[in-house]
Each structure stands twice: as C-alpha cells, then as structure tokens.
C-alpha cells in the first residue's frame, strides 16, 4: 500500500516475481510448452484449469482474490482528490520507460502517456473547460483516446464518449444531450459528423486531430501545451464525486441515454479489475472492444494502468488477426465479449491456437454452451466472467470460473451490494406485486429481473448515478421492492440464481435485445424503418438464431405499392448503425396491437424466421451488399445448420461491420 504508485499492493514472498527472472509472458509460455509439449492442449488439463473451483490461477484462492480487489478500492474514499490521471502520473514517476498503451501505429510509455494527459489537461484548462463543461470525443480506438479523456477529466471537465459508428440523427442526439461546448473529432470521423450537423440545435466548437478541415487544429494546440503535471490550484477542486465521463447506453425505449460516470466509478472499475485479475506490471492486456463503451474504454485499460501493466489497443476485433496480435504483442490477458469467443471458436483450427502466452481471458457474455470448448481449444488457463452495466449499481464476478455463470456476489460483500431477482410480468415487463404491494423474490432457479438496491458508499447498496435526463433516471428505479421505502435499480436483464448463488443471464426484458455485443433498441430501429417510403406500419424485435448469442433484428412490415426493397435497404442505414439494421424482414397484412397501441410482438418473436411457420414473404439481409433476398427452406436450413455467417458474408466482415 505504500508503493510509489500506490495502487497495487505488492505481494511479499516468493509470489512477488518470476523466479527465473523472465518476464511473466515468457514464464507463461515456458509453462505452457511444458504442459503441452506438442502445442496441443489436452482436454482435461485446459478444462480443469479454466473451470477450477475455489481457486484461481497461480494458486491464489478466491478469498485472496477478493481481498486484493477490496484493498485496491478501499483507498478511494480516503483520498477524494486522487483521480485516475494521478495513478498514471505516479507510475510515470516510477517506471517512465515501460509501455503503457500500444497499437500498431502508436506507442505510449508511462512517461509519454502522462505527458500527453498533461497536454490535454493544460489545453482544456486554458479553454476554460472545467466542472459543468463537456467535451464530446469522436475518435476510433487508439492510445490517444485514453490520454484525451484522462487529461480533460482531470481538471473537472466531462468527456462524452461518442460511438464512432453513429450517423445522422442518432449521432446528433448523442452530441445534443451532452450539451457540449467542444467536440474533438479525429479526421476519420469528419464524414460521420457532417451527417449529424444538420440535426444539431447548435454546433459546438470543433477541434480536429489529424488532417482535415472544418475545425480548429487540435494537434497544433496540444503540441504547444505544457507537459508538466498541473499544480493543485491549477487543477481546482476536482474530487472523485465529480463527473468524469458520459457513456451512452441504448435505452429500452428510444434513443441512446447518456449515463453519468464519476471519477469514483472510474477508479473503482480499475481497482476491482486490477485486483480480481491479479494484474501486475508484467501484464499486457489485448483490448479490441470499442473505447466508447465502459468495458473496452474504462474497465479494460484502467485495470492495467492501475497496476502499471500495459494495454494493446486494437482498432477493432478481427478473427483473422486476433491470434497474430496476441502472440506478436506478447499479451497475457485479453478482454472478451461472448460473441468474440464464438467467432474465434468458429475459425478453422490453427497452429496459432495455443502458441500464445495468455494467462487469463476476462469479459462478459461467454455462454455455457461454448465455455469449455473455448477454454480447451485455446488452452486458456483462467476465465474471469463478469456482469456489469455502464449505469448499473452492482457487478457480479465469476471468480471461481464456473462455466456458464455470470458470477455471484461474495457473501462478505452481500450486505454492501444487495442484489435481488424479482418476478416480472411477461407481457408488461413490470415487476409483479403481492397483496402488500411489494415485489416477489424469485426462488433459486426461477427467472426474474435482476435489481440492485440503491444506497450509499459502504451501506445499504451501490449508488446509481443516473443519466443526463432525470426522467430516464427515474424510469430505471423501482420503489417499494422489499420494504415500503426502499429503492432499487432495474437492470432490465432477466436472470436466475442457482442453488450455489451463481447468477445466470437469460435475456433482456422487453423492447431491447442484444446483437453482436450491442444492445439494440427496437423502438429506435422501428422509428427509422417507419419513415421509409411505402412502409405503412412496422414492428421490430429480436429473434433467436441457432449458434449465435443474443437475438438478430427482424422487422415485420406492412407495406403499400410504393414500397421498394432497394430503397428500404438504403433508407434506415442513413440513420442507424450497421449492427442495428434488421437482419430479417417479413411482410405482413396487419400488425396486432394492444388496446394501448403497444405492439403485440410475442407471436412474431416465436415464429422467428422459419419459412414453414411464417406466412407471407420473408427476407434476409446480405451483409456484403446490404440488399435483402428471399429466405427459402434451403437458406433457412443453411442458417440453422451453420449459423448466419454461412449465408451472409464472411465471419470477420460480419463482425467488423
């Protein structure tokens, strides 16, 4: 705890360093070669390693894993002025030359990262950015992304992390709700920004990184800025209570919502994961998830930066490049989402499969049906699956590596993060109430909505920091759950808790569904579709595709003679990100609705995309061309047999969008 960087608790004794003096990745590789001399993992070995009960890799027990995470996060409240940028600065003092952030195009050592953070901080301060000021950031995945938000937030500004794949109205909406004074645009994002410009109420000051016109030159401004750390008076009274980021979540109804993320939560995410991952200065994490999301952008990089380790930032996931990158950058950890593991598992076996030095895969959404096959084939020694939502007030961690579970709250934290599963009405999606007006807790094995009690720092539950829109915040809170005066955060996720207390993810409730790692709001998609010429009515929902995680978007349309598939295929793509475009389309005569004009989707959802069940024409979107073509029985059989990719473009193209 007294270390210079102050974030990592050095473990005394023999566990402290590699006995051979080799870097950890070399050790991992040497160990692997001993275990699997032919480069072939034996089924029993790898599965046992990744699914061990009660202990994690390197013999660290579950109790000690939790202890480290709690230790790393317990200092946060005691030092309210110590922000994440300070952790980077401390590591920069201690190990300036060691790698912090790497990509193919950019290398930032700790010293360089700290200097870059300070440049952003000085630049922002000179512009008068501080508390109550917001800067939108539109930049593809690259090391500079982290320097940008760490710097601007360190002097009190909020950085709104905007999804770089948004266009038009959705993009304008996200910029609008941030009430931003400035927008930082990587040159690559200029074209997307131009599609949003006509929809903006006002245009903030534009700053451009890289060659491009239409705004001020941020490169030049940063080059002129100071690299020294700001003094305390220069920085002002910025504490962990202050807002650091806005991170967007797709709402169950309507457009993306901007969730408030305080410095406290940035620090907690970094500390929790550094502790649970047992991260050290020798670790290198591979991060190919979007940096504008909370996991790819905060959890993954901050877990390593908290521990003095390094992060490789890939621009995007590519199944073809993945293992090359892991080996080339000598990564020891990678951050996954379940879909990514599924793509890797579908690729043909290769020599590269077990040549890596990975010790840990950490992420969320690795489902039980592929967990063990994934761990075995790629010889992943440890898997740390977790559950968390950007705006959520609790997280679950599967420290023991129980296949298919998303985690559990350890008994000694149960009082601090009370989590419940309550019965919900299947049609309305609302919690069911008993005769006393309270919610009904689900029994073990019973599916309901997961809720987390809202409370203060150490007592009664986790804080819910809400959205920029207070009405949206209120919608996520349910009151009178187990007592008249309590308040709980609604996750919108259906889960069950097994006899051992492990939670299992079932599905999203109601209107939103998950596809390719993104939550898709059916109402947002539906609004875009309904505007299309020739579409009289539309209903959008998700359908299960065998072998794929989540649900694929499907639109049921009522059309007139003006409808033209060529126009339809292009129309919503001006307003929606590619992953939100309907994969399937069916044409109906009418759409059923409730008396309150809510669409009745259950029948449509259950019919799916099976041409022997669906009456009327049925179509599939070709990811390569964007056009829709009819689904016949042969197409259907092919999708059921070998997944949607066999029919729609290549795997990597499908994922890379």
């Amino acid at each position: 705890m007294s270390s210079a960087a102050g974030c990592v608790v050095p473990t005394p004794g023999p566990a402290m360093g590699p006995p051979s003096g080799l870097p950890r990745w070399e050790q991992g590789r040497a160990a692997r070669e001993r275990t699997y001399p032919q480069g072939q993992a034996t089924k029993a070995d790898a599965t046992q390693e990744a699914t061990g009960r009660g202990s994690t890799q390197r013999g660290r027990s579950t109790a000690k894993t939790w202890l480290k995470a709690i230790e790393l996060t317990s200092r946060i409240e005691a030092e309210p002025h110590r922000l994440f940028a300070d952790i980077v600065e401390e590591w920069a003092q201690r190990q300036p030359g060691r790698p912090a952030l790497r990509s193919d195009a950019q290398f930032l050592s700790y010293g360089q990262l700290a200097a870059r953070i300070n440049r952003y901080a000085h630049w922002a301060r000179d512009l008068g950015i501080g508390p109550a000021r917001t800067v939108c950031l539109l930049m593809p995945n690259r090391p500079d992304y982290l320097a940008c938000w760490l710097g601007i937030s360190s002097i009190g500004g909020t950085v709104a992390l905007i999804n770089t794949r948004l266009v038009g109205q959705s993009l304008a909406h996200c910029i609008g709700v941030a009430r931003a004074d400035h927008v930082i645009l990587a040159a690559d994002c200029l074209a997307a920004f131009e599609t949003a410009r006509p929809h903006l109420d006002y245009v903030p000051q534009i700053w451009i990184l890289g060659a491009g016109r239409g705004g001020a030159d941020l490169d030049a401004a940063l080059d002129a800025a100071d690299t020294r750390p700001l003094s305390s008076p220069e920085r002002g009274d910025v504490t962990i209570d202050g807002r650091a980021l806005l991170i967007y979540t797709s709402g169950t109804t309507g457009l993306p919502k901007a969730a408030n993320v305080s410095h406290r939560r940035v620090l907690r995410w970094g500390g929790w994961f550094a502790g649970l991952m047992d991260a050290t200065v020798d670790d290198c994490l591979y991060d190919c998830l979007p940096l504008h999301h909370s996991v790819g952008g905060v959890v993954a990089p901050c877990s390593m930066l908290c521990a003095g380790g390094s992060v490789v930032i890939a621009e995007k996931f590519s199944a073809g490049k993945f293992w090359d990158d892991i080996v080339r950058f000598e990564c020891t950890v990678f951050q996954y989402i379940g879909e990514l593991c599924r793509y890797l598992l579908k690729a043909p076996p290769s020599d590269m499969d077990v040549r890596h030095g990975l010790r840990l895969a950490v992420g969320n959404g690795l489902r039980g049906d592929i967990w063990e096959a994934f761990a075995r084939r790629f010889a992943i020694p440890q898997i740390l699956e977790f559950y968390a939502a950007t705006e959520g007030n609790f997280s679950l961690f599967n420290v023991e590596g129980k296949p298919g579970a998303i985690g559990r709250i350890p008994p000694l934290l149960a009082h601090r993060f009370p989590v419940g599963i309550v019965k919900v009405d299947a049609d309305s999606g609302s919690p069911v109430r008993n005769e006393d007006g309270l919610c009904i807790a689900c029994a073990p094995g019973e599916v309901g909505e997961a809720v987390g009690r809202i409370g203060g720092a150490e007592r009664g539950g986790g804080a819910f920091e809400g959205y920029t829109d207070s009405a949206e915040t209120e919608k996520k809170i349910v009151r009178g759950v187990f007592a008249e005066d309590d308040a709980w955060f609604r996750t919108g996720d259906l889960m069950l808790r097994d006899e051992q207390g492990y939670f299992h993810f079932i599905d999203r409730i109601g209107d939103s569904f998950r596809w390719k790692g993104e939550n898709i709001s059916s109402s947002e998609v539906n609004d875009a579709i309904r505007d299309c010429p020739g579409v009289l009515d539309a209903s959008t929902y998700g359908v299960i595709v065998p072998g794929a995680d989540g649900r694929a978007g499907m639109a049921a349309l009522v059309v007139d003679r003006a409808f033209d598939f060529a126009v339809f295929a292009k129309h919503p793509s001006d307003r929606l990100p590619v992953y939100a475009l309907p994969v399937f389309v069916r044409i109906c005569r009418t759409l059923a609705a409730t008396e309150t004009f809510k669409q009745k989707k259950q029948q449509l959802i259950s019919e799916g995309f099976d041409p022997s069940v669906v009456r009327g024409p049925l179509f599939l979107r070709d990811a390569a061309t964007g056009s829709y073509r009819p689904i016949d029985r042969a197409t259907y059989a092919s999708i059921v047999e070998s997944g949607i990719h066999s029919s729609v473009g290549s795997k990597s193209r499908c994922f890379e969008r």
Partner: protein
Amino acid sequence: MSVRSRIFSAMRQIAEEQKITLPPLQDDLPLPDTGFDSLAFAILVARLEDDLGIDPFTIAEEVTFPSTVGEFVRAYENVPA
C-alpha cells in the same frame, strides 16, 4: 487453540491494524456492530483460510453471510478442514 479463539485472536489483530474499536466479542454480537468493514472482513477471511485451511464462504451452498459473531464462528466449526 480452538477455532473460536483463533478467530477471535485474528479479529483483535485486524482491528488493531485497521484502527477499528472492537466491542467485547460474544456470540450474539451482530457482525455489523463489530465495526469491521468489507476490507476488514476480507482480510479476516483470507487470514483464516491460511490459518485454518478453509474458506467456508467460497464452498458454501448457501450464500448468506452470517449475521452474528456466533454464526460466523459456527461457519468455520461446521466445515471439516
């Protein structure tokens, strides 16, 4: 030394390290009244795992954390080391 006295001894030591004022330890003392926070409990469970060779809360089928000192001690006494 009995399991009980080893647990009490560990609690007193952690209380001293963490600057927690520990009330007299007796079976019906509610755990929240010990003054132990999450960190102190995490240290306690990790130390007892080293000392006694067990962590009853990792292997427990039921996930409820004990509510009193007596229940906490029994959780250790009821698990064969």
